């Protein structure tokens, strides 16, 4: 029996993280939450919901939190499959069995969730759609991987690929970095349709934290260029 562990980076998600943990536990053997120096009760809430909780004493961003969580899942819990999951309830754990299926069958090393493969996207704003079209083109040019959806946080990784994909970009550009690494390590990658819910609550949050799609995109591209120049 293989162990699937969901890893959830969380920064000030006390309202939503418990639901995400409980949801993920319904499909995974264990859940690891990395509390990225939250100032609210994210840590306690996630723990009470049944997750392993690790705390970053300084906020290091989503990429860094994911890496910490994967590290813990593989090395300390002996996970066979690591699933990247979201703290804010945008993803649904009902998709996890479909996500890990190709890895269990040894048909893929990495499975990426896609919002644009059949399943319906609920309430995605037009501005965000436009950004995604640009991101797909950018990824095709930079990594040479053709995907229907490039910046979906829903991923499933086999143990070995999780070890090979060491994320070094701390903030949001890790999504592109992961794609680069998949290409560089020649991992087998497939996409699976997933449902992503855009609720008013989460949209408002991402606006507050990141300053909207455009500003966020600029920041991601900046991080990536930096990485290419000096990395």
């Amino acid at each position, binding site marked *: 029996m293989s162990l699937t562990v969901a890893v959830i980076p969380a920064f000030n998600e006390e309202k939503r993280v418990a639901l995400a943990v409980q949801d993920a536990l319904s499909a995974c053997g264990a859940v690891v939450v990395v509390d990225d120096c939250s100032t609210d009760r994210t840590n306690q809430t996630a723990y009470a919901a049944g997750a*392993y909780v690790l*705390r*970053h*004493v300084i906020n*290091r961003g989503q990429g860094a939190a994911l*890496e910490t969580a994967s*590290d*813990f899942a593989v090395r300390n819990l002996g996970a066979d499959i690591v699933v990247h999951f979201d703290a804010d309830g945008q993803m649904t754990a009902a998709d996890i069995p479909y996500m890990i299926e190709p890895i269990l069958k040894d048909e893929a090393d990495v499975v990426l969730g896609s919002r644009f493969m059949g399943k319906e996207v609920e309430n995605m704003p037009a501005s965000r759609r436009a950004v995604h079209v640009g991101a797909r083109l950018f990824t095709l040019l930079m990594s040479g991987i053709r995907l229907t959806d490039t910046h979906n946080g829903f991923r499933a990784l086999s143990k070995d690929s999780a070890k090979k994909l060491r994320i070094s970009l*701390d903030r949001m550009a890790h999504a592109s970095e992961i794609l680069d690494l998949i290409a560089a390590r020649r991992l087998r990658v497939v996409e699976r349709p997933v449902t992503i819910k855009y609720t008013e609550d989460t949209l408002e949050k991402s606006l507050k934290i990141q300053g909207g799609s455009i500003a966020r995109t600029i920041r991601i591209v900046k991080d990536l260029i*930096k990485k290419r120049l000096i990395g």
Partner: protein
Amino acid sequence: MIFQFGIVIFALLVILRTYGQYKKELVSRYWLLAFSLLWVLIGVAAIIPHTTDDIAHFVGVERGADMLVYIAVLVLLYAVYRLFVRVQKMHEEITELVRQIALASPKVPVKKGERGE
């Protein structure tokens, strides 16, 4: 004239200060020599300005002062680049440190049965 005089005094002070730091073993001998040489050259350029013009002509720049500005810009750009790389490296080290601290003290969930629920 005052400008030239000021630069020479300043150059001397810098060299003296660097020598003092070298004596206290705060900077390396290499740094002392390189930095002193730089300020000696600056002093010479201030006292006999046409030396820089001669060098400038030699490398194909019209005026010595222009050449100095070009060099200064390049040196500063390089310094900024070095700092940038160093800051980036420091960020990665901080992340690694934070990660190790996090990994060292995980909160392990209590299984439902064990809690008596």
